[in-house]
């Protein structure tokens, strides 16, 4: 018997390594469930999960939804376009209304950092952060970690390079905390205008030269570059970004032999990653998608039924 130290998953910063290990270990079982003929277990029967999405998201929402369905949970989808959010209802009122419908767990995606924490303060349900502002996206990082662990057996001692918009990426933040806690060394690389102020305090190596960053690395996790950033003047052009930071076959020579290419999707092919790299045998981009369901099933399973009395 074993359990997570928290009844919510709000982020990976300050989450103990043993919690992450429990999630990854449990994910192995769910990965196997996904390969069964009947990809469904009755584990969360009677549990109602709300997918509360304040930001448009296709992939994460579908991944959570499938994970919930495969655990036999009852599902309610609530997204901004179909809700009263536009009528000016406060987050607290919305959430309390949802809770009054007797639900058990909430997966929340929100544009404001800290919104999942806010939810824990106004409802009793188990809260899973599906991405909050530029803060954290813990299940994405866990699935990245799971995918890497499946390949190498352990994350200890691996060198992981995160490339892209370090300043605005929640995936990168969760990746930093997760990979570091599991013993990997993490390097960050992106244009200096997309590095947050005091980035060195994350305790990662920081590069603005992609070739230096890739030197001797095992895993390259490439982030989508938001085209809006270019419009707000953070880099001069897409073309220049591709020239300076795009992951192309030529640049992979500096990596360790058994290297791995990752991308959380959706990809801008030919911008941050070339098709040749994205589709190569070292790319695990589609495995990430499959593993995402297993990891989300594990998180849902481990948090389900956890009540307040047990302590945080």
């Amino acid at each position, binding site marked *: 018997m074993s359990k997570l130290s928290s009844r919510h998953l709000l982020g990976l*910063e300050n989450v103990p390594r043993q919690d992450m290990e429990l999630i990854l270990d449990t994910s192995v079982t769910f990965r196997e469930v996904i390969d069964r003929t009947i990809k469904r277990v009755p584990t969360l029967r009677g549990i109602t999960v709300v997918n509360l999405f304040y930001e448009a998201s296709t992939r994460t929402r579908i991944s959570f939804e499938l994970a919930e369905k495969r655990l036999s949970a009852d599902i309610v989808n609530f997204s901004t376009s179909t809700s009263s959010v536009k009528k000016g209802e*406060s*987050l*607290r009122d919305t959430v309390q209304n949802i809770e009054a419908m007797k639900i058990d767990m909430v997966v929340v995606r*929100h544009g*404001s*950092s*800290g*919104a999942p*924490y*806010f939810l824990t*303060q106004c409802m009793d349900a188990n809260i899973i952060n599906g991405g*909050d*502002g*530029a*803060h*954290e996206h813990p299940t994405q990082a866990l699935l990245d970690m799971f995918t890497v662990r499946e390949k190498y057996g352990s994350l200890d001692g691996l060198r992981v390079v995160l490339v892209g918009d370090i*300043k*605005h990426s*929640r995936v990168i*933040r969760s990746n930093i905390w997760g990979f570091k806690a599991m013993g990997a060394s993490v390097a960050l690389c992106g244009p200096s205008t997309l590095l*947050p*102020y*005091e*980035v060195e*305090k*994350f305790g990662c190596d920081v590069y603005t030269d992609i070739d230096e960053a890739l030197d001797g690395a095992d895993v390259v996790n490439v982030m989508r570059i938001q085209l809006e950033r270019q419009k707000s003047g953070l880099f001069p052009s897409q073309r220049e970004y591709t020239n300076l930071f795009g992951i192309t076959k030529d640049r992979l020579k500096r990596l360790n032999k058994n290297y791995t290419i990752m991308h959380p999707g959706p990809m801008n092919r030919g911008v941050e990653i070339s098709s040749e790299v994205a589709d190569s045998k070292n790319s695990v981009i589609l495995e990430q998608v499959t593993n995402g369901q297993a990891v989300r099933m594990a998180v849902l399973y481990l948090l389900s039924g956890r009540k307040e009395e047990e302590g945080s």
Partner: protein
Amino acid sequence: MASKKYDLVISNGRVIDPALGFGKIADIFIKDSKIVKIEKETAVTKKEKSSLAKDQLIDATDKLVVPGLVDIHVHLREPGKESAETVLSGCQAAAAGGFTTICCMPNTQPRIDSQETVKFVQDRAKDAPARLYVVGAITKNIEGKELAEIGDLVKMGAVAITDDGHYVQNPEIMRRALEYASMFDIPVMQHAEDQYLVDGGVMNESYQSARLGMKGAPAVAEEVAVLRDLALCRLTKSRLHIQHVSSKGAVEAIRRGKAEGINVTAEVTPHHLILTDEEIGKEFNTNLRVNPPIRTEVDREAVIEGLLDGTIDCIASDHAPHTEEDKDAEFDKAPPGMIGLELTLGLIKTFLIDKGFLSWAEAIRKMSYVPARILNLPGGTLADGSQADISIIDPDKTWTVKKNQFFSKSNNTPFIGQKLSGLVSATILAGNIVFDRNKELN
């Protein structure tokens, strides 16, 4: 029989008047809303006191008796958002916090950019338990585009101008404002944060904003704004007052400006003296959201140092009430600001006096005499013949900040639950007791 010689006597308190350099146990005699004399007890005064009626005598044994405190930076939300604060509730909060004089900022709805709005606010304060002075807008509707009718505002009683909440971003407009204001010998109070650099930031730009993924408002936005305005102030030979200084860079810029002889003054808030941005990630408490934002320990130490060496002249609360409903939101969606009037004294006592940064006399000076001088207001002293605006303080009384204890209509402060030392026990305005904590308790 009530004495006719005096209306009120404050007996046996430790009287501190930094302006006079006075600091000993004495009695204060008040007649016709003025201070008649301050004296150590003598046989004569002992007899005089014994002839007073019970309600003419305040026993201030073991208390501090100081000039009524002056806060030159408060937001009352009337007109426009009376659910957060009214002129009256704001003045009641002032009295409970030991303030007898407060200056309200013009960013109400409508803005205080015309004689009518000045007069409206003044009228609302007529029977209020604090003196209220109005600060008018620099530009029409605080849009930063055209100067407001500053002459009219001054004629109606505005004591300064500011677009507080907004930086006068256009340097040409700011230059004209400084030049124009100098005709009336009033300072231009500036919320110094360059909006292009702030760029929608919701907390200080630092490792904390980086790890929380919040949009950061850099400290350099303040420094750049201060530097520009110092240059404009030098050029126009006018008076500039920098509001709520929050960053090391701004402190150093002001220090250099003063050394050079530029006519600049500055204020700092209790929260910038006490809090850092590391608090925010703990609970995403929206009461920690404030503009300019609470910054790093380096900045906090710099503003304390600036206050000690006189670079920063005075303490002001930037009392900014918001309703609980407005603050009960996502961090980046909550309006910035926190209340201060009822907490400033206890916070300064606990975090600056008790920690050895300031003496009582220095603290009182920076909360009464100095701010009064910056805006040419009466008060801030107990000199014979001055108005009898007096605060009586229980200097070592410990208390805990509670959400439901405020006279302010709002309770947005991150200090709820904080244990403080130093509490106002009574406030006297023009010789009348406008706040008496003992009566509040009964």
